[in-house]
């Protein structure tokens, strides 16, 4: 749920980064969405189709990297993979663990095109 809100926040950031870097258009957006972020990647993809309309990223491709959930045990110190609703140490079964990965909701990087790169491309044609 709430993926369109999240996506609109993303578009706002994408436009800012694009403006700061004098982009003519945005070609690709790379996100990392952790399993505990509360955001569903497939719904975020659908929301992106709507949110990108009329923005500098209108023709951009959205790539979403899934972030695995990893917990570190406070008792035995081991790190292990965990399921969304079973955040237990895989080795000793302890529930007192710290989530060290899986909460991310990050804009990792963007590929942009600028006026100069567009001109270069047309020269190559």
């Amino acid at each position, binding site marked *: *749920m*709430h*993926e*369109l*809100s*999240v996506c*609109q*926040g*993303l578009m*706002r*950031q994408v*436009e*800012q*980064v*694009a*403006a700061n*870097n*004098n982009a*003519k258009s945005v*070609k690709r957006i790379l*996100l*990392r969405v952790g399993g*505990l*972020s*509360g*955001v569903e990647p497939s*719904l975020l993809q659908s*929301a992106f189709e709507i949110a990108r309309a*009329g*923005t*500098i990223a209108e023709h951009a491709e959205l790539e979403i990297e899934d*972030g695995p959930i990893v*917990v570190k045990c406070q008792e035995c110190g081991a790190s292990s993979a965990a399921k*969304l*609703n*079973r*955040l*237990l140490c895989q080795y000793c079964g302890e*529930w*007192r*663990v*710290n*989530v*060290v*990965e899986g*909460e*991310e*909701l*990050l*804009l*990792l*990087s*963007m*590929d*942009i*095109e*600028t*006026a*100069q*790169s567009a001109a270069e491309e047309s020269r190559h044609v």
Partner: protein
Amino acid sequence: MCETCGCTITPGNEHLVKPKGKLEHTSEGRASIEVLSGLLHENDHQAGHNREHFDRHDVLAINLMSSPGSGKTALLEATIEAIGDEFSIGVVEGDLETENDAQRIRAKGVPAVQITTGQACHLDAHMVHDALHEMDLDDIDVLFIENVGNLVCPASFDLGHHINVTLLSVTEGDDKPAKYPVMFRAADVMVLSKADLLDVLDDFDTGKAERHLRELANPADVMTLSARRPETLGPWLDWLRESVKAKRSGEALSPRIQPDGVHLHEPA
């Protein structure tokens, strides 16, 4: 906003998503830009301002979350009654429509601001900020923010509050923490409400509800109570008093889990 429930941009954040910013079409080379910032950056930023605002006024802000109908407003009514003059309470109410909840709170003699979100299924930091313009925080010790009834979306938006309290009414089923892990993981306190009904429900095991919560690596206090049985409110009221005391003594409080990516992944 979500496709599923039809919510769109919230009234509070729409100024952020007006199409076309100040874009400049100039310059040099195609580039891949590393950004590494949280997607809810705008909300987090506003939430930070809200929290500073609460701290400046020595106000303890508590975000109440649950599914619709699990007794958030009833708990507030009973709390207001029980606390009396010990300290002053204010309430921000979030619902899709109606002033009903704010009216119930005002009827108890406590200031309440109603946010109607339209189709949006959660409060965000901007909506809360706007509501704060209508409330004099100088006169308030504890501000309850009653979020929109929903076990999914509210967990993802920091409002600038200090503590998350999540209610689970015993009519809902003891496996809700396993079914809605993101919400229950965010809980700093889990309140099992409507406990007066436990006598007639043979399928709600409070121990099981707590085990499901622990399986989310959550050490939160669990309190079992009924807003209709004032004698069951003791632990809740004591916890509230302690929290107010901690806030007054200048302790820096914030939710254990920042639901929105503030705890960014730290590269090894």
